[in-house]
């Protein structure tokens, strides 16, 4: 395995303030008009009790430019294979999220053009009280370059 050394690699912790405007723009880009994201009086009557962010919003909860975890890999070989969000609770406007990125696993599988490696990277997000909110799990495929 070429990438086994990456397991355990951890980024600098960062905080991210979730604001209502960002949630609105994220939902608008998707074309998701669900009032759950923007209309507090509607959201109050739902199981959530308050506005929430769209399910894929954690993907936008990134460190500032230049501060992301650097894997130093060949970007031409990287493919976003899978994405998972594991929620303890939904993200809400006003949340201050304390986030850490870490490579949690690397494994290998035989592919058509040689072996491919898979990198599992977690961004774990806790709220200001220290309670878990969501883990965003990205699975990156690292494939041989086409020859």
């Amino acid at each position: 395995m070429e990438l086994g050394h990456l397991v355990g690699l951890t980024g600098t912790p960062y905080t991210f303030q979730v604001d209502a405007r960002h949630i609105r723009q994220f939902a608008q880009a998707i074309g998701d008009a669900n009032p759950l994201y923007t209309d507090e009086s509607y959201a109050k009557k739902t199981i959530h009790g308050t506005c929430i962010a769209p399910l894929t919003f954690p993907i936008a909860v990134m460190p500032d430019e230049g501060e992301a975890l650097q894997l130093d890999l060949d970007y031409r070989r990287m493919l976003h294979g899978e994405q998972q969000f594991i929620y303890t609770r939904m993200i809400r406007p006003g949340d201050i999220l304390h986030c850490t990125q870490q490579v949690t696993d690397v494994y290998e599988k035989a592919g058509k053009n040689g072996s491919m490696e898979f990198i599992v990277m977690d961004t774990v997000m806790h709220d200001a009280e220290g309670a878990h909110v969501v883990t965003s799990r990205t699975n990156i495929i690292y494939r041989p370059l086409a020859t």
Partner: protein
Amino acid sequence: MLEQATLSIGQVLPAYTKAPVSKVQLVKYAGASGDFNPLHTDDSFAQKIGLSGVVAHGMLIMGFLAEYVEHLAGDIAIVQDFRMRFGAMTFAKDTITCRGVIKELFEKDGKHHAILTLYAEKGPEEIVGSGEAILQF
């Protein structure tokens, strides 16, 4: 919106078709998500690597499935886990349809849960992504 009491395993849920993906949408999604890979916004860049033009962010397509799932959850269910595996690429002007099937129903901690199998397809039988969501009622 789903009604927990009426769900059954294997039940096919109503499909949902999005408006075609537009280039403006890809620029908006780049801004909102912070993913500025030119593959998604710059046709000449995409053509240099042998594609016909810009490719939609995989996460935008997952966002479509999220919209579908949250709509199904309505005001009575919370999505606890949501995952997707990316397949074929989506290009500008492609139209994505979201589909769902009830895979499993179970009770945990006194609460009803449903596992949904999800698909995003462009055109008949052409899957651009498949996934799963766990809903708690």
